[in-house]
């Protein structure tokens, strides 16, 4: 009896099991004088069992949580409404990275300031010439006469306090002043432009109608857009990429268009093109127009934009409705410019340039042009969602068709199945009973990974499935380590209980250590990875943690149950 009890104790050296051994030794040595206390075995057994029930409760709780988190994936109606998200590579869709050309927003601010300054100088009757924007974001003005600079400074202080004077140079009687926006102001405009672009993108995608889009900032100027399930990628791209800057400008009817086309553009005007596509032949015609640079009204003042069908030509057009301010401005423009042509310019292209017949009050206008239904609809969307404060550039585009996504899911699952079945069969054959326990852990492991994906709202991607497959291979590693140790201890002549005890004790630390390195790699990948790679990092992390839990805690419970409750005499390992 004494001998067998001693065998219960692990003959470990160092580390955790050494500690346990010394504690256990004290239990044995206490009654050293007389016969061993008959209850000591029971006491240890009771301790084990109590411990066992604790661990059982823990495993039960984890399992229950896992099932709860998996429910919505089976039926989305079920609480807690968090399904496993599929990545774009599995469900198909579109991934875009846009860059906001924020410096253009600064340029247009400076342009606006220069127009305002012209207005102010005219109002204050300060003699000036050649007021223009130069080198992107500087304003240059020539002040005529020696009285002008003083008056100009007064206007500057009062109306344009945010402008910084770069240089003043005397040129005969005149003075040339160059100004710009200080860096802080520029940064502010750029930040605002990016933030506003993000908001505008959200609005556009909202109206385009994509379920569960993901729109977020990436870095300082980039916007990441993920549109799962989008089929008409071309249309989506056009919608995202359009600046949608709507401007109303007068046609320069005094300037000479032919001269302008040769390069002699009159001051304050520019050549823009009106592009028309013949719907029947598909032929594109480009008509040049000489347009005044000054913007009279922009899409900023729009209240609504809708697609309507022209009753006589059965062609779609976009009807615009201005807000109160816009309506007033529009009324004023039309009043002052009767019989002149007003060009409707969208992103630098003239859509139409009708002649103003009379003053238009009420604040409504229409954009005609040879639109298809979809084009008109998208134009209305972008006008409603508002213009981008600066143009965007598509830096990265990845689209996956739905059929490829389905194929990927099928082949991914196929590899999980084939790999899993081979490993499960192998473990059962090689380790017999213990192998079955390891297989139970393996199945639980996959359940936990899936629950983790749902619970953390992570995204499952194709490399993510590869991560699960890899986990299957590595999860059995922990059990292989334990079982090999247990076999070794058994060969030394230990009882099953002692062999299992020693096997776990000696292998646990090694298992923890060995997994730390893979976990480090996975965490770094998670931090740096994007899209599919991040999905791989997620399943790998989840898989490592889950496999530690199942291999060290769950399989141990089964062994302890077999050894202490069922009094198994021979290990099937």
């Amino acid at each position, binding site marked *: 009896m004494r001998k067998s009890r001693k065998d219960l104790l692990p003959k470990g050296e160092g580390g955790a099991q050494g500690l346990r051994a010394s504690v256990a030794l004290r239990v044995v040595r206490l009654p050293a004088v007389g016969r061993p206390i008959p209850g000591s075995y029971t006491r240890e057994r009771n301790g084990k069992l109590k411990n066992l029930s604790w661990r059982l409760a823990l495993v039960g709780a984890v399992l229950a949580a896992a099932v709860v988190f998996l429910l919505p994936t089976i039926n989305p109606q079920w609480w807690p409404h968090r399904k496993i998200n599929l990545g774009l590579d599995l469900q198909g869709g579109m991934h875009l990275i846009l860059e906001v050309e924020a410096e253009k927003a600064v340029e247009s601010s400076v342009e606006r300031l220069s127009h305002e300054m012209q207005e102010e100088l005219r109002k204050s009757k300060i003699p000036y010439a050649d007021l223009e924007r130069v080198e992107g974001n500087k304003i240059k003005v020539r002040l005529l006469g020696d009285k002008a600079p003083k008056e100009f400074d007064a206007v500057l202080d009062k109306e344009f306090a945010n402008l910084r004077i770069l240089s003043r140079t005397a040129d005969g009687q005149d003075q040339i002043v160059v100004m710009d926006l200080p860096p802080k102001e520029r940064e502010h405009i750029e930040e605002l432009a990016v933030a506003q672009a993000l908001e505008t993108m959200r609005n556009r995608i909202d109206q385009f109608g994509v379920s569960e889009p993901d729109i977020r900032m990436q870095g300082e100027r980039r916007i990441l857009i993920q549109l799962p399930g989008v089929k008409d990628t071309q249309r989506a791209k056009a919608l995202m990429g359009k600046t949608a800057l709507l401007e109303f400008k007068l046609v320069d009817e005094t300037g000479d268009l032919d001269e302008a086309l040769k390069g002699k553009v009159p001051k304050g005007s520019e050549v823009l093109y009106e592009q028309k596509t013949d719907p029947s032949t598909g032929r594109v015609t480009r008509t040049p127009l000489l347009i005044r640079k000054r913007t009279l009204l922009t899409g900023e003042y729009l209240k609504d934009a809708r697609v309507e069908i022209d009753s006589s030509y059965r062609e779609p057009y976009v009807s615009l409705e201005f807000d109160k301010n816009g309506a007033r401005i529009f009324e004023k423009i039309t009043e002052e410019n009767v019989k002149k042509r007003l060009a409707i310019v969208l992103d630098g292209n003239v859509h139409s340039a009708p002649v103003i017949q009379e003053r238009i009050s009420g604040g409504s206008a229409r954009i005609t042009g040879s639109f298809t239904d979809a084009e008109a609809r998208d134009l209305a969307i972008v006008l409603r969602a508002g213009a981008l404060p600066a143009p965007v550039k598509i830096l990265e585009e990845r689209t996956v*068709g739905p059929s490829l996504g389905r194929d990927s899911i099928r082949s991914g699952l196929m590899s999980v199945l084939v790999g899993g079945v081979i490993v499960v069969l192998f473990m059962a054959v090689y380790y017999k009973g213990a192998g079955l326990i390891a297989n139970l852990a393996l199945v639980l492991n996959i359940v936990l990974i899936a629950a983790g994906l749902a619970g953390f709202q992570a995204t499952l991607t194709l490399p993510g499935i*590869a991560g699960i497959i890899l986990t299957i291979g590595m999860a059995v590693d922990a059990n292989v380590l334990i079982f090999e140790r247990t076999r070794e201890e058994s060969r030394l002549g230990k009882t099953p209980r002692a062999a299992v005890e020693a096997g776990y004790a000696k292998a646990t630390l090694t298992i923890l250590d060995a997994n730390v390195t893979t976990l*480090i790699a*996975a965490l770094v990948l998670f931090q740096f990875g994007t899209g599919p790679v991040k999905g791989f990092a997620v399943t790998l992390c989840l898989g490592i943690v889950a496999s530690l839990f199942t291999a060290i805690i769950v399989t141990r419970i089964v062994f302890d149950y077999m050894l202490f409750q069922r009094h198994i005499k021979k290990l099937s390992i």
Partner: protein
Amino acid sequence: MEFIKPDINVDFVGRRKTAYLLSAALIALSIVSLIAHGGPRYGIDFAGGIVIQIKFPEATTAGAIKTALSPVGLASVMVQRFGEAEDNEYLLRADIGGTPTEGIAQEVEAALRGATGKEVEVRRVEVVGPQVGKDLRAKALFAMFFALLFINIYISGRFEFKWTLSALVAGALIGAVLLASRFQVSIPVLIAVALMASIACFWFLRLKYAMGAIVALIHDVMITVGIFSIFGKEFTLPIIAALLTVIGYSLNDTIIVFDRIRENTRKYNRQAMETIVNRSINETLSRTILTSGTTLIVVLALFIFGGGIIHDFAFALLVGIAVGTYSSIYVASPILLAWHEESPGKNRRKKKRS
């Protein structure tokens, strides 16, 4: 059931010279291949460009596709078969060049449909601008750098439980990298500096286990990269992920063998180091083969059934895991032993103390 008998005693250590030769040959081959190919072949993620995956209803040839595409005006287009032959899938690779990429997929689809008279399916389009490619390259290298840094810190402290030394190594590494980065060097150089600094640290601090582990790790990554280069495969983001996983896995294997060596040095402290190392390798051999076996089986399943998109990723893992297993037996442990033979005096003193 047992594959490996418990009393197995293969003389791994005795064959280490052969192993050194093999490893040296493989590494030399890798370097030669990398030089011959002008560095690693970057995939679209890192080089930028256009990739279009198309599926035809019936068999066609790469030449026919190329001819059909000639009016589209893609810069230096490359056509490759993708996946199984019966899938009739092809991958088009082109540089972005000056061509506008808006609607390129539609143009390609129209051109192919016009030429073949059949419905072709555009299954995947990826356009990566050169700037993004550069950024992704930097990001991937940073990921590798940080993974190496953390793993270095971990292994320098972990084997001999000298965590103060580990802090020292971390400090030295970060110092070296900060110093190097003042000279505006590129990230690959930074990684090389970090690696050299860590090897130097391990040498001076006499961290022999850490040294064995890091040499094995470099060995594994170099050979995997080399084999990739020999097969002309492209480096993409997922491949970097696979390489990092291989690093983690290779260390996992090494740690288990080293743990047993440490345990056995305490147990049989009168025996020669060579016997102890060989004994430890043999004792863990069963586990090494089983784990590598199961992992290789599942990765092989992925390689065979996972489809074209994951094919190269699985290939990298397959190579890396095989090389990693080999290196923990034939590289990491012999390095440890070689160190031991170099400085017998030091070790005797150490033994007496313990």
